Every structure is written in C-alpha cells, then in structure tokens.
C-alpha cells in the first residue's frame, strides 16, 4: 500500500485463542476489508491463528471467509479430526506392555488436524503473507513463548493450536512446539513489545461448562479456563506497558462451546456480528485520521 494515500492511523490486530470461538473474528476482518483498513501486523494464538492466516493470505471478502469457515466445518465433521486415539501412547502412560512414550506422540494422532492446517495455509510460508503475521506457540521443553514469523504457515498454525497432551507437539527449528495459549491465550505483550501502534484485541471466552459430556471436553474446558485465568495478569501488565490506545473486542459466550464444536459455528459467527455492531463507529473514530 502507498503510505502517502493512507488515511488511517497505524494499528495492529491481536486475535486470542478459544478454539472454534475464535472464528467469531470473521465479521471483524470483513469490516477491515470493507473499510480498506490494513493493519501493520497481525498476531494470533491457538484457534485465533485461523482467521488472521486466511485473511492475510488474501481471502478477504466476507462471503469467501464464511465459505472457508464452513468448509472447515465440513472437514472436521467428515474426517472426525479429534477422534483418533493413539492407543500405544495411552498404554505407555501406564507403562503397559506394547505402550510407548516419545515426544512425537500424544493422546490423539495429529494427521487429520495437520491436513486441515495445510488446507488452510494453501502451501504458503509466513514470510510470503502480504501482512506481517506472527503466531504464538509454546516451547514444550522450556515453557517459553515462541513467536513464529517465517517458515511453513501450516506448521505454525498447527504448533500454535496443538493442545498438549491431547495433540502432539511439532518440531520447528529444533524446538518442540505446542499450543501458544499455555503462555498466554492473548499474545498482546508481544504486540506491545514490537510497536507503538494502536492495538485492537479480539478475545473469546465463555461461561464454564459444568456438565462436560466426555473426558476430552472436561480436560480441554479445564485447560481453557486455566489459561484464561493466567491471561488476566499478562494482559494487565501489557496494558500498563503500552503507550498507545488498546481497544478490546470481547466475545463472551453465555452458553459453553466446546473447543472444536463446529456445529456451533452459526452461533459463533453471529456473536462476531453482535460485538462488531456496537464497536464499528468507535473503531473508525479511533483509526481514521
């Protein structure tokens, strides 16, 4: 973009995690497209890597984004992405015969989920994206945050959303990486570190699930709530540190939505529209010169 023709202030966008709930970012990104607003940088974590990745990748019209989200839904339902237990690893947890333990394996096999990430990435590398896009993962060995900004986009999306020990880690540049939400589900501190832009934060949370229907939902729901709890103090520190405006678009779901419950996608997208409706003018007032 020709900077001389730019009629808005510099801004970055941070999209937090939340599994399927982070698809509620679609209306916000459609709003950016409609108003010709291009952020300087995009930050994503966990489920919050999907929409920024395909938007940065050039899928920017509202209808196309929605089609992409529903294609994802069909894939999840058809391929049963989260239904493939790794029995040898499960036996290995109790040191049973025929069990195994290795860093490459976890409770579920990752193949189908990784294929879905590849489909979303379309063979691109992070450095190929026209907007600098930074995805947050966590180093499984040191528990330090890792910010991916170059290399295979599909691997980066997978790393940022691999909820260990449900999904196995992925090795990138000699590090074994898992879900970025373990460090902080909203990578706001990294956005603060990198620039003094206005920052728009999209966060996703919900009332806790009190009656999970299976162990997967019990555990993923618990971990989501725990990382959400830790994110409060991270976010407070980031807000205190930043020297410019930060606008939060909080997407709060009053009924629990399990981490990859794709049947709830219409409800999720609708939440994105509801939140945006109340904030559109505020965003424009904040950004337009």
């Amino acid at each position: 973009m020709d900077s001389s023709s730019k009629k808005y202030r510099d801004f970055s966008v941070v999209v937090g995690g939340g599994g399927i709930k982070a698809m509620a970012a679609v209306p916000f990104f459609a709003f950016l497209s409609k108003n010709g607003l291009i952020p300087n940088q995009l930050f994503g974590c966990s489920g919050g890597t999907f929409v920024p990745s395909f938007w940065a990748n050039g899928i920017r019209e509202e209808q196309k984004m929605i089609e992409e989200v529903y294609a994802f839904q069909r894939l999840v339902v058809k391929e049963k992405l989260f239904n493939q237990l790794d029995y040898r690893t499960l036996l290995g947890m109790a040191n049973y015969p025929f069990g195994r333990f290795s860093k490459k394996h976890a409770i579920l096999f990752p193949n189908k989920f990784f294929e879905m990430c590849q489909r979303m990435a379309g063979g691109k590398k992070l450095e190929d994206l026209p907007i600098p896009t930074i995805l947050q993962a966590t180093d499984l060995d040191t528990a330090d945050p890792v910010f991916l900004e170059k290399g295979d986009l599909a691997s980066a999306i997978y790393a940022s959303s691999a909820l260990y020990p449900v999904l196995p880690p992925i090795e990138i540049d000699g590090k074994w990486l898992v879900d970025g939400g373990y460090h902080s589900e909203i990578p706001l501190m990294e956005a603060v570190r990198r620039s003094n832009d206005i920052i728009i934060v999209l966060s996703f949370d919900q009332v806790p699930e009190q009656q999970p229907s299976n162990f997967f939902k019990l555990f993923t729901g618990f971990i989501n709530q725990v990382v959400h709890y830790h994110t409060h103090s991270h976010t407070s520190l980031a807000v205190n540190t930043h020297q410019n405006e930060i606008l939060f678009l909080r997407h709060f779901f009053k009924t629990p939505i399990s981490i990859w419950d794709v049947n709830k996608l219409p409800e999720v997208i609708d939440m994105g529209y509801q939140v945006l409706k109340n904030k559109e003018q505020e965003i424009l007032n904040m950004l337009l010169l």
Partner: protein
Amino acid sequence: MENSPQTSKKIGVAFTGSGLQGLANIALIELFEEVNFKPDFVVGCSGGAAIAGLWGQGLNAIEIQEKISHYLNRDIIRHVDLYGFLFFYKKPRNGYKKNHALLKANRLHKLYNHLFDDIKLENLQFPTAIQTTEVGNGVGAVFKQGLLKDIVYASSAMLPFIPPICIDNKWYADGSFTAPIPIMELVNRGMDHIISLSFTEPSLKKPKNFLSYYSNFVSQVFTKAQRSQITFAIEFHHGETLLLPVKPHMEGDIFDRREINRIMTAGRDTVQQYRDEILRLIER
C-alpha cells in the same frame, strides 16, 4: 528463635513442588527445627501440600521422610482407567463421571489415607492453607479447612492423568495449574516475610515417561505464567520474598521413590546455599 507475636515480623512459608519433589521442602524444615523456628502461616501446593500436612501434624523432618518412604509404592499410579479411555471422546449414556481420568487414583487415595487418616486442616499446629484449582472455572481455590486427605489429594491431582475430586459439590485438581508457588495467599494473610522453594527443573532432554514429561511441562509453564502474578504479589507485599531455586535433576517420574535421595540432596544444597539469608529473615 520462636516468634513472639507481639514484637516480631510475621513469617509465612510456602511448600511447593510436584509429587515427590515436595520432599525437598524437608531441608527447610530441618533448618527450622535446628533454630526452633515456627512460621506464622504455611501454605502448600501439590507435592508440597503433603509436606505441609505432615509437618502440621507435629512430625519432624526425619519422621516425615520415613512416613512417606514407608507408604510410597512405585506402582501408585500405574493403572489405566478404562472408563477414561473409553469415554475420552464418546459420550457415556448416563453422562460423564468426573471422578475418572486416564489413570486410576485409588492407590493415591490410599496413600493419603495412611498419611492423614481423618485429620482436619484446621486442626494442624500451624495455621495452614492448601492451594488447588477448581475444575469448573479454572480458578485457584485455597482451602483453610476440611479433611486433609481429600484436600492434599486435590492439590496434587494432575489432570488429565489423575482424576479430580469432589469436595462440597465442587471438583478440584492440582493447585500447580493456577499457583505452583502460592505466595499470594501469604501476602493476603499479612505475612511480612515469605520463604519458598522454587523448582527450576531444567527441560528433560531424554524424558522416559509421559507423566513426568507432562508434569514437568505443566510445572514450568504455569510457574512462568505465574510470573506476572508473583510480580503483583511482590508489588502488594512490603516485606521480603525469598524464592530459593531448587534443581533436583530428576530422571524418573514424580512418584518414583528411587528419586527420593536426589530430591532430598537438591533441597539440602539449596538450603545450605541460602542458609544465611534464610536465618537473617527468620531471626527478625
């Protein structure tokens, strides 16, 4: 050196560490016994909760180590829970029972039954609290009263391997998920000075077992996540906070009794290294 409540500063001690790592805290107890120091408040988390409970019963350092070694069985969490496997992704007909996880915990319950019988937290010789995490909302929950065996179990229930426990109609799991070093409770209790071990186990380059690898990850990730919490705690706190780094370099898992000597040595090395600082703090 026993504190006089009228004149001395209040001193709180946090006992931390996953599984058997908690035994490293015995080194602190040895030093406290040597100088006849009694804390004003104790808070325990995960493996450290068991040590807090045993010390609070009046056992000395040697008795605590002997009691744990006596009842600890290597096979304590070595049995798969088929219910957890079967209904990992399937929905049971009558709804999922939350007292199941990937491994069975009946032997762990038995261990805590031996260690604590029906003793209650509020009856310990020092005011004591225990850090857990509420499963329903992922928020830290601190117990100040109730059955010690259940609360200590809750504080060390490492999901998804060890199942949570229901206490007063709420489900609780390992306190390490929310506050591996629960110093905020000591700040809230008005302690002037705080002492705690801080486990800085390096990454396991050759992990041998899923449970130890995962518990090491959880401990590291949430200790780091807690940094900003600790920053706030220190900011609110007007006294000194002494966090003593311990590196046990464990090779086995967190319930492997062959690790006991390694853990005890690491704890004693740390306490020896920081002896003067600890004494300076507790002598006030």
